[in-house]
């Protein structure tokens, strides 16, 4: 029973991180139909930024979000207006190849700049506390709380603000949004900025919990795809639900598959993904766009 409740709590905490990690990926896919294969690399950049700020300026990873968010918003905005906006109207293959190229370039750039030595952010509060017989790692609990806060904030922004409404309009019907005066390129750039900033923020928050290295990105990209398939595109409750399901599944595999379970995270995620795609190609909640319908 103890092991079960511990696994459940660990899984939910991990799932909270996954939910915040996947938001940027899922919103970019949902709003502009771009599958961003460089997603994990932006997470990696966020983690390195947090590491650099911690190592050289002594800034706490969670405090460093105040710097990382605006900086990475700018990066995402510029990337969108210089590169992705050029190909967003073109077929899927193009955006896949371009973001694949960006991901290779970023990972190897990171290798040149930071070398491939793993980096750690050793915060003072890296311990854990006990509650009701279950161990809560402090950092992961903070991430979980921050994830819920950020998701609530993004939800309010998309639902209530004028800009958020333009973003949703662009996602639902681009032509109609144009007709009523939405500047699609600007809305896309702002969306990309927000998403890249959120992804980097997730990386920064992740930095105290695992080693940072240039090639940490692809597993996160894969998990982001899995969660999106589980929870649907660009839907915040879906991201939370998908993240929690994946987190709990992974921890249960790690707990109950003896010996090698802890290293099977990526494989678990992949098997889940293929299962979902094969059994329900439209995603568990019907959120994935059928490819054929996009052809018109």
């Amino acid at each position: 029973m103890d092991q079960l409740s511990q696994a459940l709590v660990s899984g939910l905490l991990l799932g909270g991180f996954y939910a915040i990690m996947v938001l940027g990926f899922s919103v970019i896919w949902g709003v502009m139909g771009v599958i961003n294969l460089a997603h994990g690399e932006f997470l990696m950049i966020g983690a390195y930024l947090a590491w650099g700020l911690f190592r050289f300026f002594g800034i706490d990873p969670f405090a460093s979000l105040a710097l990382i968010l605006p900086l990475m918003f700018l990066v995402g905005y510029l990337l969108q207006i210089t590169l992705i906006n050029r190909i967003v109207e073109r077929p899927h293959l193009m955006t896949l190849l371009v973001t694949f190229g960006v991901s290779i370039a970023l990972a190897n750039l990171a290798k040149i700049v930071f070398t491939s030595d793993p980096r750690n952010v050793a915060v003072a509060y890296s311990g854990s506390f006990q509650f009701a017989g279950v161990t809560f790692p402090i950092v992961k609990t903070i991430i979980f709380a921050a994830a819920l806060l950020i998701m609530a904030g993004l939800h309010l922004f998309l639902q209530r603000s004028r800009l958020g409404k333009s973003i949703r309009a662009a996602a639902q019907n681009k032509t109609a949004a144009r007709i009523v005066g939405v500047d699609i390129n600007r809305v896309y750039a702002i969306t990309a900025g927000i998403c890249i900033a959120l992804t980097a923020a997730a990386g920064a928050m992740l930095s105290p919990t695992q080693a940072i290295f240039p090639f940490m990105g692809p597993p996160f990209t894969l998990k982001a795809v899995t969660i999106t398939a589980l929870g649907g595109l660009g839907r915040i409750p879906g991201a939370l639900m998908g993240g929690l399901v994946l987190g709990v599944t992974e921890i249960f595999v790690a707990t109950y598959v003896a010996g090698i379970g802890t290293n099977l995270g990526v494989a678990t995620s992949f098997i889940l993904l293929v299962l979902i795609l094969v059994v329900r190609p439209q995603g568990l909640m019907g959120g994935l766009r059928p490819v054929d319908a996009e052809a018109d």
Partner: protein
Amino acid sequence: MTTGPPADKNGNETGKKGRFPSLAPVHSLLAGWTGLALWLLLLLLLALYPYTGVSSLALLVGSQIFVLVTLASNWNLIGGMTGYVDFGHAVFFGVGAYIMAILVTGAPLLISPQWGFWQALPASGAAAALFALLIGLPTLRLKGPYFSIAMLGTLVAMREIVRVSRPITGGGIGLNLPPVLNRIGDYYLMLAIMGLVVSLIWWIQRSEFGQSLIAIREDEVGAEMRGINTTLHKIAAFMIAAFFTGVVGGFWAWQNTFIDPDVVFIETRTVEMVMMSMLGGLGTVWGPPLGAVAIYLLQNLLWSNLFELHLLALGLLLVLIVLFMPEGILGTLGDRSSTSLGRLLARFGRNR
């Protein structure tokens, strides 16, 4: 920007590449027996090349180029001709490499005596083809980007699975193969495999099988309704491509004498295959070999001094090719419709 017709249609209709002399006649000539004759002549010249008294380095370079040409042609069979853009094709390379290493080193769990290279080489290919069958049955049902992502996932997942299967695969430490230095043998073996694969692609492209693959690429539902067993054709193309990729992986492991999960299951190798095919001309017979040679020359002539920057440049080059030369060398110089990339892209659907 308004939602106009797809970009590829635009290109075809306006034909703005008119400033180049049309190479369409050359294309149709190359696709036929003339192309095969020229190819066999080239193979003959390459076979005679070692007799001109070359260094062993030149032989190594030769076999490396043949590896790239073979990989690009294989990827093109599934990615270019059948239209299933495989982002994880390096997984078959890795499976082949590991089967070779496990068999020739008689790795721990195997009771049987060590295998020789010549028995292990076809086994590498067969294992990769079997793996393609198992993985293709679910993934080839997926369309467009979902297939690409599922295959990328297969690659990343296999890397982790191989890493944790320490008793069989040596885990993260990798496996050491017996060092056998035979540059001239490597050269001729790869020359033979490359010759076989490219000739096979040439034959497939002319055969009913190949035409069915192209029909699947253009319109899978339509092909199905015309009575083509699409599942069988896709699986067959996938297995052929995987078989030779596995053979090349096995050869590579033998030549490299060391493998670990990060060396063989690496995304970069898939990227290279995609880039070489795209640079040369997706879906053509001679484009991918041309692209492979071009990429190899680029890597070695331009970037040999910037080793660190090489992969960074590779990623940026991929972006540039997609932006400025999406139809490759053959497509850009010649008749646009010859590569059919536009129609392949249309099959992928457009973004909203």
